[in-house]
């Protein structure tokens, strides 16, 4: 239990660092760290499949996509940012409203769903989960990180 609390504190600290960061690149790195800590927490509370998916999507893939996106953009100056924000607000103000209404409507519909939750696995270790049950995802993670590294070299290093 004590370890879980420490992990949760680390999780909150990493999340705070991510959202407070003024650099988009640091924010992307922070997201990867937050997701990796969350994955550890999910492993510890015996949800290995959720942990692996979290590790694959949020710790590996999404930060690489963020870094690629950041590399394709130019930073805006403040007057431009304000102008852009107002324009977006005027154009998309109804979107949260639609989401709330859709959420209310969906909660009123009674779906007759028979959910098939995954069979409980007898407390696999992280290694067992990754190597024995989801080796393709693990290999995919390695390749994603390599793709991200080469992308950074192509888009940032060579630009200099």
């Amino acid at each position: 239990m004590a370890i879980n609390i420490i992990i949760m504190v680390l999780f909150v600290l990493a999340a705070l660092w991510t959202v407070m960061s003024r650099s988009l690149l640091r924010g992307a790195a922070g997201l990867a760290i937050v997701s990796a800590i969350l994955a550890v927490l999910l492993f510890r509370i015996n949800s290995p499949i959720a942990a692996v998916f979290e590790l694959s999507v949020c710790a590996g893939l999404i930060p690489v996509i963020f870094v690629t996106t950041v590399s394709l953009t130019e930073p805006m100056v403040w007057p431009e940012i304000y102008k852009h924000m107002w324009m977006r607000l005027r154009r998309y103000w109804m979107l949260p409203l639609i989401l709330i209404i859709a959420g209310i409507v969906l909660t009123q519909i009674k779906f007759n769903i028979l959910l098939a939750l995954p069979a409980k696995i007898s407390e696999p270790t992280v290694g067992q989960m990754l190597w024995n049950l989801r080796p393709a995802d693990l290999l995919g993670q390695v390749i994603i990180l390599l793709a991200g590294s080469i992308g950074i070299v192509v888009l940032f290093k060579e630009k200099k």
Partner: protein
Amino acid sequence: MKALLILLPLIGLLIANLLPKRIGRVFAFLAIVIIGLFQITLVTCPGSLSGVDPLTLTFLMLIALVVVLTSISSIAFPKTDSQKVNFNSLLLIILMGMNGLVMVRDIFSMYVFIEIVAIASFVLIVFNRERDSFEGAYKYLVFSSVATVMLLTGIALIFLFSGSTSFESIKMALNSSPKNPIILLAMALYMVGLFIKGGLVPFHGWLADAYSAAPADVSPLLAGIVTKTVGIYPLFRVVSLYSVTGPIRTIILLVGIISIFFGALAALYQKDFKRMLAYSSISQMGYIVLGFGCGTPLGYAAAIFHLFNHTIFKSTLFFNAAAVEKQTQLRDMDSMGGLAQKMPFTGVASALAALSTAGIPPLPGFWSKLLIVIALWLAGFKVYAILAVVASVITLSYMLSLQRRVFFGNVGEHLLHIKEAGAELLIPSTILVLIMVGVGIFFPFIIGTFLLPVTRLW
């Protein structure tokens, strides 16, 4: 043996990046060629890849072929040693990503490999860091991210029902309650995600910009195999786990026929060589989806055969476009003309590929389109069959327009100094043209060796 198709490129990639750049660039190129040829040999030797069905084998062969030819063609375009290592490293990553995608039997692992291919594609599009390519890659990135959200939501909903992400469990779960609204929603989200990745209408906004803005040696890869592997292969593989009937079939057929007409009509009005080919790709992808939408074994086989043919003839056309762009520094077709006199081989290869695209016999595009029309007719979709034939006439008109504007007529004064492209660009075209003509002439042989085994998949 299957694992080697991912591990060998990975080892090649690591060694190429550890060696000094001057040696690494040669090593990376040789690694692609050797691994690609090894992959083609494995695919063509019966029994060497156990447990792999004809659909995966077809894709493995096309992936290896297009990646190797792209690497060869890239020699024609000047790059520093470091850029050559990075370019070929990205090709190795794409090779791994696509090989993994077509070999896994798990919907989540498939998603991971789809994203590997997408990330490597973004970087390849902006490789030369030109303004247009940044715009094209950015659009691709935005559309791709939307597709990712849809795919993940679809996978999550499917997972709720199946309790596992393996194809076998999903097939059982989906078919136990096929009319459940959540399952229909999951399939719809998954399909829309794939339609975006495949650049089908109305989700095609990124495709023309990405294809035309990509470096000349990257466009054949994107148009030839990447879009099909990330957009069409998962559609064949996952949607066919669920019966292709009812509203799912209607959506597929409508997206297919709209893509055919929109792509063909948009291609008619293009001035840019590569943009015309990009819109033509949307149209031809529509034919593939239309064949799949029949929901019959003949329709599936015809769709896969057209996918094979489209990879061959569209890659040929993009390699020819790369040759023209390299030699003339032009993409505006109105500024060209008479290039067949200066670039005779490129002109002939382009004419053959254009005629195959338009479905002129005995070229393979004719046979696959004929099979799609027959499959539609036999499945009772006679209106779709007639529309598919009508669209073929539009295809012929824009392809003839392309040939006339680029290769026929008098040579302009500014093009008098133009010479035929180098061997790096002619070798890929020659190989593809030989395959194209061979498949067209030996079509009766293809029926027994390729089409019948594919129909047994469903």
